């Protein structure tokens, strides 16, 4: 199989997964209890009015018709309007998504290099002081749920020490430094939850490679320690590391839901939570689809990257 065939295959699998996900999301919101028309009309719902609203929203069409209308609209970028206030969902999503991406990206930029570095440091001398400190600390972190970490951080740094704001509300007048100030706590909380997994995986992948004859050969060739780790061991451990990084970044995207709510950060996650409370179905559907697309795209990229990281695939015999 040539490399393009493999990549093509991955793309098709990715698209198939997305399609399947869209069915699940649609059906999932469909079986939510309560009627949308009732929700819109609230107290003033008479049977006639409800029927009119249902007709206007196309809720009387059969399920599969509504699904295809929704899907084509979604794919063409038309997310519809909010049921609660009639605002265009697309514009709101654009604003919110950039906030969420800022939060997720800052977390990724800090935690991924940090995790790989810590994992490598732990692998240098397995069982040594550094290794034991890193592994036990990451084990402790992995055991705490993200909301607990966030609450503890807020208690210490915002309430007791009063160094940082507890709530991450955004004003248009914010400068870079203000952004940094409000991002520190959410980014730290998010990093903690995803760091541990990546550190442990990097450590074990590198240790695995370090036990191989190729590394023994490099030692016997006289390759210095640092080069041994970075040039000889790390490239061969990339496959598993890329996969766990992607998995954690995907987790990050859904993890922001909790953290955004906790810090009152105006991102996609909070938008979705608000929509769920208001039974604002189109928003819930759109947000769910965006989160799922992130998941699928990240995992697909991880697949493709770890294939590309293997020279056996890149260069045929």
């Amino acid at each position: 199989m040539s490399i393009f065939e493999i990549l093509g295959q991955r793309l098709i699998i990715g698209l198939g997964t997305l399609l399947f996900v869209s069915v699940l999301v649609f059906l999932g919101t469909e079986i939510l209890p309560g009627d949308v028309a009732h929700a819109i009309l609230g107290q003033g719902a008479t049977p006639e009015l409800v029927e009119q609203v249902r007709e206007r929203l196309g809720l009387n069409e059969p399920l599969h018709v509504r699904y295809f209308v929704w899907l084509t609209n979604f794919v063409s970028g038309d997310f519809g309007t909010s049921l609660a206030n009639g605002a265009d969902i697309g514009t709101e999503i654009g604003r919110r998504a950039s906030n969420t991406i800022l939060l997720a990206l800052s977390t990724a930029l800090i935690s991924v290099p940090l995790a790989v570095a810590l994992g490598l440091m732990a692998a240098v001398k397995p069982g040594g002081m550094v290794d034991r400190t890193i592994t036990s600390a990451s084990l402790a972190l992995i055991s705490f749920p993200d909301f607990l970490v966030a609450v503890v951080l807020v208690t210490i740094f915002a309430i007791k020490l009063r160094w940082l704001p507890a709530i991450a509300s955004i004003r248009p007048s914010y400068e870079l430094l203000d952004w940094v100030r409000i991002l520190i706590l959410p980014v730290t909380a998010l990093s903690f939850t995803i760091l541990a997994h990546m550190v442990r995986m990097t450590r074990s992948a590198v240790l695995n490679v370090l036990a191989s004859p190729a590394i023994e050969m490099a030692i016997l060739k006289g390759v210095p320690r640092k080069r041994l780790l970075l040039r000889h061991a790390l490239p061969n451990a990339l496959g598993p590391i890329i996969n766990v990084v992607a998995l954690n970044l995907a987790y990050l995207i859904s993890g922001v839901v909790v953290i955004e709510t906790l810090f009152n950060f105006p991102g996609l996650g909070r938008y979705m939570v608000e929509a769920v409370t208001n039974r604002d179905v189109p928003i819930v559907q759109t947000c769910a689809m965006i989160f799922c697309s992130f998941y699928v795209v990240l995992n697909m990229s991880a697949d493709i990257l770890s294939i590309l990281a293997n020279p056996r695939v890149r260069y045929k015999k």
Partner: protein
Amino acid sequence: MRDTSQNGPLLKVRNLDVSVRDKKGHEYKIVDDISFDVQPGEVIALIGESGSGKTTISLGCMGYTRPGCYITGGTVNLDGTQVLDQSLPKLQELRGKEITYVAQSAAASFNSAMTIDAQVIEIPVITGAMSREAALAKAEKLYSDLELPDPGSIGKRYPHQVSGGQLQRLMAAMAMISDPRLLILDEPTTALDVTTQIEVLASFKKLIKDNNTAAIYVTHDLSLVAQVADHILVLKNGQMVEYGTTEQIISDPQHEYTQALMAAAHLMPDEIHAAPPVIQPEPPLLQVKGVTAGYGTQQEIIALRDIDLAIHAGETVGVIGESGSGKTTLGRLISGLMVPKSGGVFLDGNALAPGVQQRSRAELQQIQFAFQMADVALNPRQRLNKILSRPMMFYQGFKQAEATKEVARLLERVGLPTEFAWRFPPELSGGQRQRVNLARALAAKPRLIICDEITSALDTIVAQQILDLLEDLQDELGLSYMFITHDIATVSKISERIAVMRHGRILAQGPVDQVLSPPCHEYTQLLLNSVPEMRTDWLDEAVIERRKLVAALDGI
């Protein structure tokens, strides 16, 4: 900085001890009081079975031990430098420049994520000893000295893009790039096919000679080392058993262990014994008729073509070929692990269902398979009692209590103590595990056992014991064997008939004496020519002969 004025030995190893420390802190020696010298330009061979400490000693000469091992005594002096007292940065310098290493499996020892050139020139370039261009030019010269194809561009490839024999030579180029004073070769040809082995061996010999490099050659094969070494040091259980010149060791071994090694060497027997011709009853026990088979969804990658083969009751049929010849595929096909594209397999004249799922229990019972890697084939978390009683319960309907009694008898039969029934496979040695592997096949009470390279991973002496056991079992139980191997010397000793395979075809088959004596097929001749002979001038003649035969084969 090279001091050539000194006349003493290049390497002096004195009273070297290496110990292993287990989890409880107990220490035991795996290398015990070893002393030897290597003169400049001299090749010394360390020879012994696995566990004899030969690799540990050679690594110790580089100041390196594998995890869990510690150098607990002695000195290693390389031309005035006390190797064992050096700091790690100093050692790294020594290893890159003065002492270099060629590992057993180049395929595993090259870094698969870097090009070959990048690895060959790595050390001289990062230490600043050579410029990149100079190092590349030197590498290219070494490639062509080692008779590698396409020396100008082979280094731009990745390790998986070249063959095993080429990789092994590329690793020698990597070791020679800094003009080391001492080269350590650790079983450098063991992982290669027999016909490739002599080419690689010959190019190593030439390289060492042309550069006048001293070398330590580690191997378990006495007949190979006779071709390259000046002195031989025989090791057993980490201790020195005998030391002498190559001539003396092979013509007049003193110690009985050396004599045993000599006896078990992979040599062609002086005379190939042929079984007296008997009229075999028809139909034969097993017959393969017109089988073609392949891999892939449509079996489009053909691995076997037009195979006809018969195995009679009580007979051993040797199937010989190099890797990729289809010999293992044939074994898998007979046992039903693979399905033919056309043709069929017959047991007592009755057609067998192609796949193992469709065969009846009684049919399955008749044909058993013994795999090459006993350590992989046996479940490490099951006691031998469970491993061996399962086939008895499955095929013969034994209750566990009966089976347990039978297991004891079976263990005795294959030469293992009965209390081994309560042990786990990892607690056994390689030879013992291979006996269990055979016992597992025997437990079904089969009529035919397909033995797939069952002695290849074993030391020569242990392998000989397994072969003896096979013969005893055959005499006693009237078993038939299909003995799959790449080792023509072994197969010529134990088979009545043999089949020679290449590229998925049987090139020649018949009684062993007929197939192996002239006039025989060019490929058979090539295989025969590749079996080392215990004389020091064999290699040069063999290489010339090999070139002629390969040319003839390419013409076919």
